[in-house]
């Protein structure tokens, strides 16, 4: 104890002495010399003459142009500005319990008011009773896609126009595709809007989602059955999973030339590949930010319901090697009903499809990484209340 105190005391004493007397050991009488640079001054006229003699800059040379800003966001409408004049005494919308003597019917001028109503007579016009009112009734439903008139039994009672019977050669009706479980939240997207002119192997199937090489349900990746949050009915989930497996198998077949080396096992592991393929490297922050810049401006929730704007959806996006969207599937949602989530999902899906229409800007060498991605669209920053 005493030894420690002694060492501590000596140390502090040394510090105090250094502070008091240290300057004597480092003090120098002459300050260091400051370097001085000679600067010559010229007049304004001399400067102008010098500039005039200098070679001119090539104005046609390319100059960096600012990038266009993202799609402007419509801000909430400002409150109407009215002059700050004294407001009248607040008057209740309903008559007060002790109202002033109200004008009696005799005090009211009997003639019609100067404001001309649509009908010239001041007499009241009866509202048409409900049975006489034009009551549009939802008649037969129409097929969701244009089809041959003869293929539309739902509107068979409607007189078919002549042009419908003889469509022009360039407007052949498209046969209606089999509905692939429309209640599901899985959408197989045609990679391009011009299927007739695109190479067949790059396209999603347009005729049937059930190819011959359909895998057995047991080979379906287990995560497919985890989308039950959007399909509460467990029996429906099985059906949906089977349909999803068929669709994914069809998509896999359609993209076989590009992903032939990818086995189901590799798909399950995501970034993993087969033995002769390197494991995909993770996307770096710059690549992720670039993806946000490409898709984000198209994510428009301005036309969503107030409830849908409270929903956060997570979707799995599968991308082909040429960076086309193969499928968009909602995997989960929070903050609203299934109906609201479907609306929010549709808005997000539109953003993905529109943003990807000109490419996603992803590094080709990391295809194993980004061939399947999870996108979460969180509306908390822009939701309506």
């Amino acid at each position, binding site marked *: 104890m005493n030894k420690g105190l002694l060492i501590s005391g000596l140390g502090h004493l040394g510090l105090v002495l250094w502070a008091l007397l240290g300057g004597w050991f480092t003090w120098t009488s002459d300050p260091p010399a400051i370097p001085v640079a000679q600067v010559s001054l010229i007049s304004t006229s001399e400067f102008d003459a010098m500039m005039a003699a200098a070679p001119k800059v090539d104005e046609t040379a390319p100059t960096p142009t600012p990038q266009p800003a993202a799609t402007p966001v419509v801000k*909430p*409408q400002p*409150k*109407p500005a009215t002059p700050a004049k004294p*407001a*009248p005494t*607040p008057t*209740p*919308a*309903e008559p007060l*319990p002790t*109202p002033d003597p*109200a004008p009696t*019917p005799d005090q*009211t001028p*009997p003639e019609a*008011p100067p404001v001309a*109503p*649509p009908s010239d007579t*001041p007499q009241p016009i*009866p*509202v048409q009773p409900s049975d006489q009112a*034009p*009551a*549009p009734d*939802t008649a037969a439903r129409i097929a969701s896609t244009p089809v041959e008139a003869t293929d539309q039994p739902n*509107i068979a009672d*409607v*007189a078919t126009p002549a042009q419908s019977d003889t469509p*022009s050669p360039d*407007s*052949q009706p498209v046969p209606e595709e089999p509905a692939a479980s429309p209640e599901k939240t899985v959408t197989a997207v045609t990679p391009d809007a*011009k299927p007739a002119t695109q190479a067949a192997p790059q396209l999603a199937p347009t005729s049937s989602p059930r190819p011959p090489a359909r895998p057995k349900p047991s080979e379906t990746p287990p995560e497919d059955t985890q989308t039950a949050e959007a399909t509460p009915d467990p029996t429906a989930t099985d059906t949906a999973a089977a349909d999803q497996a068929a669709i994914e198998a069809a998509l896999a077949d359609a993209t076989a030339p590009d992903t032939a080396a990818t086995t189901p096992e590799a798909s399950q592991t*995501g970034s993993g590949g087969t033995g002769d393929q390197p494991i995909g490297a993770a996307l770096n922050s710059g690549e*992720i930010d670039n993806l946000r810049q490409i*898709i984000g401006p*198209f*994510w*428009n*929730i*301005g*036309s969503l*319901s*107030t409830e849908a704007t409270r929903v956060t959806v997570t979707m799995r996006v599968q991308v082909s090697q040429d960076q086309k969207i193969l499928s968009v599937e909602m995997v989960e949602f929070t903050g609203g009903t299934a*109906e*609201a989530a*479907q609306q929010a999902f549709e808005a997000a*899906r539109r953003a993905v499809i*529109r943003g990807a*229409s000109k490419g996603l800007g992803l590094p080709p060498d990391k295809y194993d*990484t980004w061939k399947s*991605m*999870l*996108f*979460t*669209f*969180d509306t908390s*920053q*822009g939701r*309506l209340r």
Partner: protein
Amino acid sequence: MTLSQSLTRLLALGALCLGLTAAPLAAQTEPHITFSDPVIEPMPYAVPDFVAENGGASQAARDIARVVADDLTGTGLFREIPAAAYISGISSFDAPVAYADWQAINAQVLITGAVQASGGSLSVKFRLFDVASGQPLGEGLQFNGPESGWRRMAHKVADAAYSRITGEGPYFDSRVVFVSESGPKDARQKRLAVMDYDGANVQYLTDSASIVLAPRFSPNGDRILFTSYATGFPRIYVMNTADLSTRVLDEQPGSMTFAPRFAPDGRTVVFSLERDGNSDLYTLDIDSGALTQLTNSPSIETAPSFSPDGSQIVFESDRSGAQQIYVMPASGGEPTRVSSGKGRYGTPVWSPRGDLIAFTKMADGRFYIGVIRSDSTEERLLTASFLDEGPTWAPNGRVLMFTRESEGASGSATLFSVDVSGRNLHQVTTPGPASDPAWSPLLP
């Protein structure tokens, strides 16, 4: 601690470490990217003139497409792409859609339709397409009706499109009863009128022989309650909209009745009754005539409105010394104060969705239309002006209509509409000054 316990803890610790190590590896298998900055702007859409499937339908085909476009654009949620920008048209209702042409002009939604006229009736059918994904958005629908009902059919088409895209309930095919005003401010004449929600098809229900106030539709739209000074004192009347027959709702000698509103069941009316200088809330069973007093307070209670499920009533009262909003059980009982901000609150109306209560607020010499949750949270002011008052909800609970009066001797009342988000404030066109709007339910 035994050896087995030690081993168990060691294994658990090892498993935890392994899990913590493996979790990030598993997360790397699929990139997970979060988007958190949505754009809020109107959705661009295209609605070409509907196809006239016979000669008599040409005008209707154009007019219906225009009304559909006006409905959608009027919500502020959509932006119509002008026809001049179209690359391709719709020559036939059954022709396949050239999605690429509509994508090229940035249309996100396309509405196509066809109209057929025969024997004084119209048949209108339409389809909705999601241009971005190149898919139809739901099934096509067809409406049949008389030629005179072409606007209603157009509203039906717009309602279907609006609901499919936004997820909101429809409201275009609805009507609004209001007080049509005329004459100078000091001798204003008022009469009841009804119009489409967009101001079209105005029809007058009463003459200007007596002052009328505060009309209210019944839940199914077959009757209208209103207050009239026909006897010199305010009395509640009920009008049958089919034949305009009118009768006094209930005769209470020596009293004044006003501020009526139907219960959701359509059989009960809640209103204010003033007797001996004091006003309280009462309900009246229309069938039996049974009168029930809900409040008994020396203060002024008025402007009652039922919750959509009929279990509660929101009303205004000055029992605290200033005009505030309260909620109480529909059968009466201790009220709970809802409004708590600075200023005075009045004319509360419960949203059809049940989540919000719209009100008029008076503070700092200005009037506001606002909404607040029934649990007294999230009060928001949507409008502000010299005089805004008397909000009414659209059938889907997304839009409010109210009266805005300009100041000065020449000032007049007009009807305005605003989205519940506070956006899309715009005037509703009426033939003349108008006030006290009340939205009908969605028409059948």
